[in-house]
């Protein structure tokens, strides 16, 4: 389990993370979403032991990460900007990784090579951006680490490769109970990948929740009655928003879906329809509830 307790990280006069607290459980895909400069990459660098926090601490199973090889051996980090050794090919990278990561699996490496169809003897600097990311993924997954940190994971991957990486990630989580932390500035990217999602804004986590719970706890209802009605007719239903055009009212409701459906059907509506919400819509309403303007928090998402 990764625990960040009151973590503060500054770069000169800029505060990247401010007293951040979070807990990332084992065996899940944890998504970190936030606009550029929100502190996603900084948090990953702190978790992977690249940075040392100015205040607070980052622990993995109660052990501090910074300058601690026994813990760092259980973590592998794939950054947004990839780096490979000068003039290296995958074989040379494999050698280095195998020498420093105690659990590095050559068999796994060979299997992944075949899956991605990459030539291990070709210099990495001749690879395309997508191929370089595939190479980095192969190396990361071959390390057999307990914690895999992906920064902007799917950047540069075509849809086929994107699915392949996602599937590999799921397998790791399912089979080896690996914890994957993935960041993205795109909520849509993480929507179908993560078990848990956290939203970072100005160096702090402002929202964190289970994705399934998020998706099922909020839903959109369209309802109409033959007579004139007002908002008060829905007393007892927790509404995050209410909008009425003509005789049709549209509501965002929080609560148990079946229970709410039964409650509303009992009112004998002439039109009743329950619509699923996209994760983005869920975030918009949840943020609104917490007093944040979603468009401010994830600028690139709302167009």
């Amino acid at each position, binding site marked *: 389990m990764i625990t960040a307790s009151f973590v503060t990280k500054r770069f000169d006069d800029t505060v990247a993370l401010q007293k951040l607290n979070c807990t990332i459980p084992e065996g899940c895909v944890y998504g970190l979403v936030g606009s550029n400069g929100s502190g996603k990459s900084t948090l990953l660098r702190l978790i992977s032991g690249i*940075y040392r926090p100015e205040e607070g601490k980052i622990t993995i199973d109660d052990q501090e990460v910074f300058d601690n090889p026994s813990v760092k051996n259980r*973590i592998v980090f794939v950054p947004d900007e*990839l780096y490979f050794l000068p003039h290296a090919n995958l074989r040379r990278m494999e050698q*280095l990784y195998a020498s420093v990561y105690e659990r590095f699996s050559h068999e796994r490496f060979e299997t992944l090579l075949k899956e991605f169809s990459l030539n291990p003897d070709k210099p990495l600097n001749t690879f395309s951006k997508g191929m370089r990311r595939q190479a980095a993924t192969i190396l990361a997954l071959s390390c057999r680490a307990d914690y895999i940190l992906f920064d902007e994971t799917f950047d540069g991957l075509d849809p086929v490769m994107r699915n392949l990486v996602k599937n590999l990630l799921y397998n790791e989580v399912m089979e080896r109970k690996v914890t994957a932390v993935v960041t993205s500035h795109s909520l849509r990217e993480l929507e179908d990948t993560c078990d848990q999602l956290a939203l970072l804004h100005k160096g702090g986590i402002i929202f964190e929740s289970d994705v399934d719970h998020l998706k099922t706890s909020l839903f959109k209802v369209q309802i109409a009655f033959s007579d004139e009605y007002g908002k008060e007719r829905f007393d007892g239903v927790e509404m995050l928003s209410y909008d009425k055009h003509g005789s049709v009212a549209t509501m965002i409701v929080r609560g148990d879906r079946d229970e709410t459906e039964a409650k509303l059907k009992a009112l004998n509506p002439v039109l009743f329809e329950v619509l699923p919400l996209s994760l983005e819509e869920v975030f918009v309403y949840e943020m609104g509830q917490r007093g944040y303007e979603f468009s401010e928090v994830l600028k690139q998402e709302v167009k």
Partner: protein
Amino acid sequence: MKKLIHPGFFREIFRQLRAKGLVATFILAGLNLVFFSIYLTRDPVKASIGHFDARLMAAPMLVMLYVFVPVMAFGAYRWLNRRVESDFYHAIPLTRTQIYATTSAAIFLWLLIALGSYAVVHAILRTAFGLPINWLLFCCVFVNMLIAMVEITAAFSIGLSLCGRGFTAFFQSVAVLFLPRILLTAFWILTEVDSGFTLPFSMILPVFNPEYNIAATPIHSLLYGINFANPLAMLWSLAYSVGLLLLGGAAFRKRKSELAEIPYASKFLQTATRVMFGMPQLAAITVILNVWLRYGWEEDFMPREILIPLVLTSILFSFIFYCLYELISSRKMKKVVKAMPGYVFCLALSAFFIFVPYGVGKLRTLQPIDAEEIKSFKINNESTILIPSNVSGSETWTNYVLYHHAFNDKAATALIANQSKEDCKEQQKGDEVNFTDMQRIIVNKGGLFKKMVNLPSYSGMLKTKDKLLKICKNDAAFMKELTAFPKGQVTYYAQSLTLAEAREVGRLFREDYEKLSDEERLSLFTFNNSMIEMSEAAASPVNLSIALYGSYGAENYTMSYRINKMTPNAAQAMLGFLNARNEKKVRKELKALVEWMEHPKDDFVFSSFSVGTREVNQYNLWNYEDQRKFATPKEAHPDEYKLLKALSEAPFSDDPSHCVTFSIISYDYSSITTTTSRTTAGIAVDDTLLAYIEQWIAAYDATEEFPLEVVDL
């Protein structure tokens, strides 16, 4: 060990440095050939009998260390200055100590390969050309270079750990390597300007001694006078280097990985480097004002119209450099303005170097030494360098013995104490004396405390010198050491002999020498550069000499001995070799000389000739006065004519008891400005002629005048 140096990571870093390492190895090994070609072609004979030259070995190594250590360090730690690379390496599951130690080890191994190949090729080339190797000194030089390697690498590790950009890291590293030495040397020089009275700081504290920090030495004197075999200096340099390396490790551990692409880790460092840029230009002011403080203002020292613009220009230059450096490193004008307090610090540091050394110098010069305080003393016969140099090869064996003997005779210590008081009186009077060519006495007060006493005025020096000579002669242990045959590895050299012949003569000389008494041995010394001129030139009809080039321990020395009938076997062998080679030529020269004395002509001009130990100059036989009074040299100098005539008709002989050595230096007929080398041979003489010659030589010795002095053209 694996905890410190990670094998896999080591392999990778070593591989990354491969190209640089191989280039360094080939260049360094190749430099041997270049240096050897120069060395051998300059003077092949001398090179083959000469000393093992520590500087010849060390200089290319140190130059290449200056070039390749930064190249290696920047190659191995390049990632520290690039954010993406820095993230990659810092994410690797190794401790920072492991990364630092492993990277340093990879750099060291490549440098070791380069330096090792150089040393091996150097040794092979010396052996191939038949040049002597002093293995102890060879190893000392190599170890010194290894220490320098550690120190320079450590300096660059510190610079790279403290900065996040190559430009600033480079200058920071240079500052770490040289700034302490520059400041200490400046302090040392400024406190020693006029104080020949006390021992320099350099001999009291290792930190002040430029020899004790081999990597930074070129700042001081380009290896001149460096004693590569000083164990204390090596230990000090090693401790200093290891200290720097550990400091580098600490800086590396403390370094924030986000420093990549940011010039400095702290404002203090930034200021320190700026100060380094601002200081050199202020040095002119420091020196000028220091001299002014010491000697008072004199118009003829430097006119005001030059001094004031000079001081202002220095300040302006230092200010411009200071700002320029700041502008290049920070790229912001605002930061240049913010950096101004650092410039004020530069000025304050200049003031420190103006007043503090002066004050310290004053304090140190006014302390005479009492006889009771003197545990022992050493006589240092070098002129300005206080430590015998094993580099230049000019140190004589007698000077070596003199320097390494600790005198502790009571009368002697009283003499030194008295001289010390005289020194202080002289200084209090404010008399300026030029001490540079004076001998110095180094007094040991026990432990690390030492003091230096000068022999200031020429007359004072002579008086004290005579007394010291007596002290030396009365010291039996010293005399025993002095007259013993030089120790260590010895090669022999004699003009006109081949190296094999010289070796044979040298071997016989040593056998003859061992049989002589101390007094007899002393009379064979030919040195005249020692303060203790105990050897009185013995008048002798046989006058030959042999030079020794030796290495003892890690030090080189030279020595020259007379060969005469006291060393009969060596004399006979040498005369045999010389006669076989020179008979025809000497006969011809002698006849020509006699002919010239009878009928002086312009087409035959000789420089000088000698019979036994008496040397006769051309002007001595036929000077302007003679030409006005006599028709020929024969008439002017009938005794010499008779002698030369007899010698020109006598047979040659190699029996030292019944022959005289005759040697002549004649001008090359084709060019009057070029003299030929001395040609010597042994000529047989009967008892009557021998007696006459001995009388003739003794008569000259009695006058105690050098023949040239009587000629006043």
